[in-house]
Each structure stands twice: as C-alpha cells, then as structure tokens.
C-alpha cells in the first residue's frame, strides 16, 4: 500500500492550519497548502506555520494559490467551510490524480460536490477540535478534541479501510487526535442531529448554546422544541437505516449541564451558525439542517421541524439584503 509522504491541505483557516502545523511538523512528510490569497501563501512559504496553545510546533510548508506549484500529493485534506467547497473544487479539478481526498466539513453532503469535479477516492470526516488563527502563519490550538474519519457511505469506490487507518495513524502521530470507523454514519449522524437543532435554533433565537436548550420544566421552555426536533432527526436516521452512536438529546443536556470541555455554568458556546448570522455571513444550514431535510425526502419521512428551521435560517439570510426602510 502507498505510504503517505506528500499532503496538501486546502483552505488554511483555523482547522486547516492546525492540520498543517501538526502533520507538517512530522519527519518524512512534505506539507503543501493551497491558499486563496497570494499574501497567505507568501507568509506560509517565508515563515512556515507556528502552533501554540495545546501544542508547540513549527512546520515548514510549500504554499501556493495554484495547485500546479505543489506537485503530486498522496492525501488532500479539504479544510474549507462547506460554503467554499465548490469554489475550492473548481480549482482542484484535474489536479492531484493519485490523491485521496479527506473531508472535514460540518454537516453532510459536501462529498457529492467533490465527486462532481473528479474521481478521487474520498474519506468522510468530522472534527471536534478547535483553534484560533492568530495570523496567516500562527494558529493557537484550543480544544484538543478528536477528528473522526471513515469511508464515504454513498461510495462503492473507497480508498480502502487500511488506507483510512493509515491516515488515522498519521494524524495521531502528529499530536492531534483521530479515530477511524468502518462505518462513520452512527457518529456522523449523532453529531449532525445535535448540530442541526442547536445551530438552527440558536441562529433563529440569537441564543448561544445555553442551559435553556435543555429546559423542559415549563411549557414555554425551549428544550421542548430542541427535544422534538432531535427526535424527528432520530426518526429520519432510523428510516435511513442508521443506528446512532449517541442520543443527541443526551449530548445536548450533557453539553449544557457539564459545559462540554469549557465547564461550569458559564458554558454558552456560540455555535458556528450563530456566529455567521451575527456577522451576516452565509451559514452552513444547507449542509446541516438542509441535509436532514434532503435525507427525510429520500426516505419519505415527514420533517416539519427541520424544514421549518431550515427555511427560517434561509429567511434570515435574505433579511440582510433588505436595506430599504420599512413602512409602519
């Protein structure tokens, strides 16, 4: 089997930078980075990438805005946001013919976009780690949480589980945390259903993930909606033949009572969708809540909560272009 020697990370935001800094610091690995900005590539070529926080590392890298400059690679890690996958793949089309592409986007379904641009074997993945980009050449590693990978379920043509295990070993050796699954869907869908409700309801209500997401004492408590929406997601997963690894409602209650890895009563995680809404930037709702709506359609299961929340978030996105003053 092919040994992984050359890696390309596409999109060096916080997650991409963490992967570049860790895997790129391993001996015997050539790390390349495909960036969008020339200045980003220049900074990386001149300074390499520094990791602080939970790790202290420095990686030398080859960066460019043009995949032609990076040479062939064995593994591409696509680390852009879901909303940038299509644009990134337009640039990758026809390049890296012998590579396997590993995905790490939120939600579900970006693999279909990748497939439209080429026939690379695809590894599906999701990550719980987080970091903060201090500059183009410096990332701080905050949450040392795992990245889960496995075969893309819609694909007969998989890279083979032994290759996926090799990617898992590579990530673990670099100081990040990874776990490979022969069937990723149980963990993927557990997180998807959790994220769909917490992100969409948070985006519509302007609420971070605070304890009221788990309150069901009063009839007017928000937890009722969270629980109903998650139950709907569970029924769709079941109809899709997926057995969940965790109960999303329990994940929700645990996160707000134990505070995830932040701890305590101050836990008020600002979800990515809420952050996007607050910055008036397009959300990932198509790939999170929208992907559950599409999965429900496939199996003919009604999804009124997901459909409503999906449309409400899309409606909020439309409100940003309404500049004219309203009548009274």
């Amino acid at each position, binding site marked *: 089997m092919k040994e992984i020697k050359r890696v390309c990370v596409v999109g060096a935001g916080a997650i991409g930078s963490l992967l570049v800094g860790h895997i790129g610091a391993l001996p015997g690995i050539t790390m390349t980075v495909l960036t969008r900005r020339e200045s980003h590539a220049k900074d990386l070529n001149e300074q390499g990438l520094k990791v602080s926080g939970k790790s202290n590392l420095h990686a030398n890298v080859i960066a460019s805005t043009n995949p032609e400059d990076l040479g062939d690679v064995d593994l591409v890690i696509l680390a852009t946001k879901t909303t940038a996958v299509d644009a990134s793949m337009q640039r990758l089309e026809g390049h890296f013919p012998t590579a396997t592409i590993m995905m790490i986007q939120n939600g579900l379904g970006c693999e279909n976009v990748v497939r439209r641009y080429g026939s690379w074997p695809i590894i599906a993945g999701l990550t719980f780690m987080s970091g903060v980009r201090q500059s183009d050449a410096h990332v701080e590693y905050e949450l040392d949480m795992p990245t889960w990978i496995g075969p893309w379920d819609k694909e007969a043509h998989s890279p083979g589980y032994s290759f996926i295990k090799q990617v898992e070993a590579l990530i673990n050796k670099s100081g990040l945390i990874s776990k490979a699954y022969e069937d990723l869907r149980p963990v993927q869908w557990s997180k998807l259903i959790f994220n769909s409700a917490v992100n969409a*309801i948070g985006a*519509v*209500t*302007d*609420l*971070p993930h*605070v304890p*009221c997401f788990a309150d069901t004492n009063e*009839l*007017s*408590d*928000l937890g*009722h*909606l969270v629980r*109903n*929406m998650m139950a709907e997601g569970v029924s769709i997963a079941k109809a899709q033949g997926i057995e969940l690894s965790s109960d999303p409602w329990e994940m929700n209650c645990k996160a707000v009572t134990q505070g995830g890895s932040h701890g305590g009563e101050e836990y*008020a995680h600002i979800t990515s969708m809420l952050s996007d809404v607050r910055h008036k930037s397009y959300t990932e709702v198509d790939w999170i809540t929208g992907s559950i709506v599409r999965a429900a359609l496939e199996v003919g299961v009604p999804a*009124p*909560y997901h*459909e*409503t929340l999906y*449309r*409400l978030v*899309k*409606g*909020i996105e*439309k*409100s940003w272009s*309404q500049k*004219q*003053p*309203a*009548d*009274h």
Partner: protein
Amino acid sequence: MKVCIIGCGAIGSLFAAHLGKLDDVEVWAYDPYQAHVDAINENGLRLTGKTDLVSKINARSNAQDIPPCDFGIIAAKTLHTQSAMETVAHIFKDGAVCSVQNGVGSEEIIAEYVPRVIQGTTFPAGHITGPGVCNHDTIGVTTIGPFAAKPASQEESDRLAQALTRGGMETTSLADPRGPMWTKVIFNCASNGVGSLTRLPHGIACDQVRSVMSAVAQEGIAVAKALGITLEKNPEDMIDYGREVAYRHKPSMLQDVEAQRPTEVDSLNGGLADIGDKMGIPCPLNRAVALMIKGVEHSWTL
C-alpha cells in the same frame, strides 16, 4: 355615555380621539405614560396621517381619578391585560369592557374583573409619534360582539359599535364576532410569528418563507374548525392581500423584537397552540414559533 380607553397607545388613541368627536360621549383614557397623559390634557389628543384632528378627552395616569363608565375599550398590549384590568376594574362595576387587542386569551382575563365582556378585533393601525400625538397609518374596520362566556348584551355591543361608527371608526356588532377575530389571529400568527423570527417585512417574508407561513396558518385553521368557528376569510388570502398592500410593513411583533420589547407571542402563536392542545389539535409549528420567540426574548437577558 361614558367610555374609558384602557391603554392609550396607538390603537387606544385612535379609538379615544374618534369617540372624542361626539357630543354625547364622555371619553376618559387610562395610561401609565405620564408625558402622554399630560400632553393630551393640555393640548388634546392629536391624530395625524390618515386622520387629521385634535380631540379633547380626559386622560389619567391614576385610574382612581376616573369616574365609573358604561364601557371600557382595552387596547393595552396583551401582556399587560392582567395588571391593567386590576388597576381599572373599579371603573366598570356596572360596565362592559371590550377588547380590541391582538390574539387570544384576553377576554378570559377581563372576565375575571368586570361583569360583562365584549370581544373584538380591529384592523386600523397607527403609531405614537410623540406625547399626545398618534399617526393614523391604516384605516380599517372593527368587529365586536358579546363574549359568550361572560357576555355583554347585544344591545350594549350594538350601542358601542354605533358610537364608534359615528365617531369615524367603522365598527360592526355581531352576535358571534369570532369569525373575523380568528381570521386575524391566524393571519397574525403567520405574519407576526414568522416575520419576527426571520426579521422580514410581511411581503418579503411571503416571497421567501411563504411555505412556513402557510404551515403555521393551516394549524390555526384546523383549530378554528374544531372550535366550530366560520372564518370570515381564508387567512391564506389575507396573507396574499397583505403582500399586495403592505409589502414592506413590519409586523408589530417584529417591531417589538427589533426594539427588544417583550412581545405578544403568548397571545398569538403560544395562545393558539394552548387552545390547540385543549382541543386535541396539535400545533407543533405554532408552538415552535412561540418557544423560539421566547428564546429571542431570553437572548436579551444574557
């Protein structure tokens, strides 16, 4: 006859100023906003916009200064119904109080405090532009009638409607006013509820999230049917009509959300879902909208 307006905000001011034109009606108004009350007593209550008039009425911020009245018209926001009725109950020991508030559930509260209740629904709109001044934004009809659980007489309801119509606020008195009332409640649940969550004016919400508005409205239509109410119009047609005539109108609850004021959602989507629960007609989307607007209100406290 003596009429006391309870809550002299935009809607209350429209009723008060029009009734104040009549020689045979003595108009009182109770409102806690002192500057508004003082301006009304000094300069009269002024309407601008669709109506241009100054009306001499008696405004008070202390309800103890108001004499017994034959009628009350409560136009307070629904979340103040209980406290307002507690304050003014003594004025209506032998009077009838008519609600022209949004949503459902107010009449039941009013009935705890006064001997006779009239329920109503009103379409005019306005907004207070300063102390003592209200802009009349939209002309519209009002429909009233005895509240079945603790009714005023039909004669009383007719008399109030005639006075309002003579004053320039076109009002119809029916034996059962629930048809027009529920038509508006269902329309409001769709327009206000969905508009408040998406922050979209009515017409743009129709363009972007009409299927959600319809799903919310359909739950209400099912509840009205279970209650044996014949709707005056199809709320779906009202939603379309609203798109034509009020494309950029921001529903009142959206205005509340933008100003971070407590909303009337408990009387709209929440009230509808409560009645649905009692009738065995589940309203999951109205409940979802109500819970999320409560969530929005909670977000202001963080």
